[in-house]
């Protein structure tokens, strides 16, 4: 039994790698546990460490749909769960008025019909629990939405059902795999944290980042990839406002390849500077990279 579980972990890890995502085993075993327990997975970490990617790649591996709900300030139930199609409802009422043949029984039936599923617009949360095959539901950047929305979300995540006053309760036909991401701009409520499995994703270490670069940018030669990763890792150790994430590393790799740079060295500092806009994203941080510093960093790679 023990060996079985380890095999499962290794298997899923390989599958994820096949889909282009390098995952550490703790994350993989949390993904398995999330399916076992039917609990959502809360991913926290700095921007650009690949939190959203987890959901995408999980959907790809499980060969299922990805339903994404991007949170923003002011997100409300109508945008997240369901809304009535008012235009069609009004149209139906008008048509009903001009229909002379309708008898009384028919009318009652039609009236019921106005608040039926035909006139319901499913937004991501409703859509996710009505799928036949369990989809992956990605609730992205939940910290941007406000507390009231968190409360809605709790109801859905604990019972996997939604109550629509006009229609009744919609129960989940299948329990979706819920992945919630947060950048930590706001503290989430303890209730939500308690409901979820938790996984903190850090910036990747040297070996992991190298594997990612090799995977995503196969045209970069081994030496260059090695140097790029060493460079980015030392940039991350500096006191910057916005540390470069994995996406930035890959962008920068593409930029270097585009300029035909094959090796990072001291003399190439000028050319590295040209591409640094792919890695450094704020003005203050840019000021921390005069040519001398870049040359020193490049020489150390």
């Amino acid at each position, binding site marked *: 039994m023990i060996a079985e579980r380890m095999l499962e972990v290794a298997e899923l890890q390989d599958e994820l790698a096949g889909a282009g995502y390098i995952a550490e085993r703790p994350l993989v075993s949390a993904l398995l546990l999330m399916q076992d327990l039917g609990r959502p997975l809360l991913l926290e970490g700095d921007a650009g460490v690949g939190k959203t990617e987890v959901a995408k790649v999980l959907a790809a591996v499980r060969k299922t749909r990805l339903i994404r709900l991007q949170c923003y300030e002011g997100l409300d139930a109508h945008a997240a769960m369901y809304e009535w199609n008012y235009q069609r409802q009004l149209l139906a009422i*008008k048509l009903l008025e001009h229909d002379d043949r309708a008898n009384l029984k028919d009318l009652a039936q039609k009236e019921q019909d106005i608040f039926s599923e035909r006139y319901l617009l499913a937004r991501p949360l409703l859509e996710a629990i009505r799928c036949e095959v369990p989809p992956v539901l990605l609730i992205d950047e939940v910290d941007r939405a406000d507390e009231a929305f968190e409360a809605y979300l709790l109801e859905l995540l604990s019972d996997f059902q939604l109550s629509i006053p006009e229609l009744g309760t919609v129960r989940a036909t299948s329990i979706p795999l819920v992945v919630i991401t947060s950048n930590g701009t706001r503290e989430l409520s303890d209730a939500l944290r308690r409901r979820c499995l938790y996984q903190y994703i850090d910036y990747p270490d040297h070996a992991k980042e190298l594997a990612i670069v090799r995977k995503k940018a196969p045209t970069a030669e081994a030496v260059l990839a090695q140097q790029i990763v060493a460079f980015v890792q030392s940039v991350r150790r500096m006191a910057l406002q916005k540390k470069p994430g994995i996406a930035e590393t890959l962008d920068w790799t593409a930029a270097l390849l585009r300029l035909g740079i094959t090796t990072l060295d001291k003399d190439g500092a000028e050319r590295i500077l040209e591409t640094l806009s792919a890695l450094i994203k704020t003005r203050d941080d840019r000021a921390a990279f005069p040519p001398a510093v870049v040359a020193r960093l490049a020489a150390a790679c």
Partner: protein
Amino acid sequence: MLSLVDAPTLDALAAARLTGFPGFLRANGFAVGGGDAVQAVQAAQRVGLLDPHILRWSLQALLCGRCDEWRRFDELFDAWFLPPNQWTQPAVRDAGGGTLAGGNPKPRHTGSGTNDDDDEVRPHIAASHDEVLSSTDFRALTERDHALDIEALMRRFARQLKHIRLRRESRARHGRRLDLQGTIRRSVASGGTPFQLLWKDRRRVRPRLVLLLDVSRSMTLYSFFYLRLARALSAELADVHSFIFHTRVTAVTQALREPDPWRAQEQLHLIAQGWAGGTRIGDSLVQFNREHAPRLVHSRTAVIILSDGYDTGEPQILSEALVALRRRARRIVWLNPLCRRPGYAPVAQGMAAALPHLDLLAPGADLASIAAVLPNIIDALH
């Protein structure tokens, strides 16, 4: 060793050890509830008890809820499950329930007036570490002079503290957008013709106020004045929460709300131990973040700190505590009584560390100066 014990017995032993683990985490400050023990056992049954790695990762995902718990988990897991001679670092513990035999518990830093070793080298500016245990005279709290002025000013403040416009909408008589759902509901009465239109507009909510009053020795001149302000404000608004701090934080909301002046004084007497002692703003804020902020401070909360910024703690701690508080709160305003003095610059260690994280630093030595900066404060709170 393993071969001597039957597999079922080993399983049972491990399971027994496992059930105590959530309690051990709770004793170490994790937000773990009673139901989590059941969940942990269920999860362990699925993944198998005897593989340390899988069990570790699964429990970490299950029982952690935030980043700092995540980082501390490995150490605690080792301390609980590995035999005493195999784990490397002793874990910090503060409750007897989870102590391990043979452990070497570090004394936990309580922040309640004990001197740090390196503090002796740093010059003391105006504040000191010592808590003053002598009694303080609280009669000034309900003094008659200026009482009316203070009340009038706070009433003005409460009235001007207009509601924050939220992105969230609710029904309104006039508004920006048609409320289709409501309009259709209303149109049923007139056979589907929407005679009466309903509208939506942004909802407005008054911010919650949290007052943090510095009552250390360097603030002696002002602390009573601030306490009276807080009392007058609590009388005007329901959603005001007041705390005093020196080397630690104490809630005084209830005492200030007490309508009977004598009983208010009595209550303050009981909780004011350490009044006019040393200041550790950073440690106090860390304590506030830990004990009160999760419950009190949300994204519509304005935190108002009333302090001179003389801090004997590490400026680094203050800075980090403010960053954490800033993430929860909507605004942080700092009223500094010294701000008005000619030639004042926020150079006190504490003030310099705090400045980058504040929305407003305003003077507030007396009634007149607070009245003068009131518009700025109200602007900052919106």
